[in-house]
């Protein structure tokens, strides 16, 4: 009984800390954002010639992607890429880039 109690307490704690950790890290956003970084630089730190995404305001990124999707923002490729992402994916990606510190 006592042993079970310890495991129960430890597991509750573990469950809580792991889920918090996953949410804080935004692993999904990180993974989806990595589809942008071949052109926009690792974690959004562009080497130049492509827009920097790291540290941008989340709402700005979300809005830009919506405008690319709608075709109201001028683009060479982004109007095509933007249509590949759901609103949820855009939200998580924007959150990831917004959280990246500027170099």
């Amino acid at each position, binding site marked *: 009984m006592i042993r079970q109690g310890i*495991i*129960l307490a*430890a*597991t*509750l*704690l*573990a*469950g809580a*800390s*792991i889920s918090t950790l996953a949410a804080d890290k935004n*692993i*999904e956003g*990180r*993974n*989806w954002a*990595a*589809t*942008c*970084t*071949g*052109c*926009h*630089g*690792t974690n959004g730190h*562009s*080497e*130049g*010639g*492509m827009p920097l995404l790291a540290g941008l305001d989340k709402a700005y990124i979300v809005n830009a992607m919506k405008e690319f999707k709608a075709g109201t923002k001028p683009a*060479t*490729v982004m*109007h*095509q*890429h*933007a*249509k*590949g*992402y759901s609103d949820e*994916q855009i939200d998580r990606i924007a959150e990831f880039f917004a959280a990246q510190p500027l170099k």
Partner: protein
Amino acid sequence: MALTRRDFVKWLSASAALSGTIGCATAKKSNAVGRVVVIGGGYAGATAAKYVRMWGPDIEVTLVEREAEFVSCPLSNRVLAGVMQLKDLTRNYGKLHAKYGVKLIRDEATAIDPAAQEVRLANGGTLKYDRLIVAPGVDILYSEVPGLDSPQAQARVLHAWKAGPQTVALRKQLEAMADGGIYALTIPKAPYRCPPGPYERACQVAWYFKTHKPKSKVLILDANEDVVSKKGLFMKAWSDRYAGIVEYRPNSELTGVDAATMTAKLTFEDVAADVLNVVPPQRAGKIAADAGLITANKRWCGVDFLTYESTAVKNVHVLGDAIMAAPQMPKSGHMANQHAKVCAAAVVALMHGEAVNSQPLLTNTCYSFVSDKEVIHVASVHAYVPEKKTMEIIPGASGVSAAASEQEGQYAQAWGNNIWADMLG
């Protein structure tokens, strides 16, 4: 919430990793949760090595690469036009070690022992792995082109389909050719590395001829029934910019060559050229073939698109041009970079006992130069389709340039600078 023993163990090991205070046998070993070995330092392998370390700093990563430096195939057709040099496409591997702690071994992996989970090296050493990432690129199948079996023939009729000495040698052949000469380029049946690459190459050589040797011709002998990539835009470039220089012949399958006379043998005719450039059929790199990773058409390696783990060999992942891609998934450097990140995330998750991303996405942007400065692109976004276990282009999320432009020329160069930094530092 379900309470499992696994969660508890995971939490215990997480605590141990954080505090390092649990005194047990494992505490004396390295802190690494496991070892990953990557074979091949191209677009796929270098990206994978970096991203596994970046996302899983407690994982040991060793990259085995036989060349001293990375040379990019994308943009290398510009060397043939004479507007870029090989050194502009060359980068070193130093930051992978200095910044990300990747162990670099310059050697050739000669064999994989999946039972012992070991890689053997040409110098005689072995490397143990928990997970192996194989990114060997393609091998050129000279055996498929009668007349190209000897080293002498291969040194005369070049492929230049791997950026390096052959690229420079082909440029020299074009420079040495007299005005009024014929450059013939043969294209194998798809799939081959870089679908738009041959057509871009035709444009680059045509631009060089137009500006330096205007009486010369570019003859494209394509084994495919039509232009494989960016058809409308390439056809427009040939008719608007290079009329009288470029001639395109579909359904022209190469049956052999005569290297001495630079002659391409087709099914119904022989075509003599002053410079003959043969892109032979290709297959996943030799190490993949030797390790039993090839599952499709004796050429390509089947993978699970959630993890890039081989469908044939456990704990071995395959990336880049070597894989049996889903339809519409090109064998491109950009795609290889994308495979690597999905794989890196999966490898890190698996080695930490966590769930793998069930909704991976891949993007692709391939830029092609149609002149010295103007560029066209093809772009797409691909999503995993669980019921088919494959990747498909998301409806609407693909397309090509409206027209060639210098603006996209600037983006193409910026693409290179950014993706090389994304993979190497």
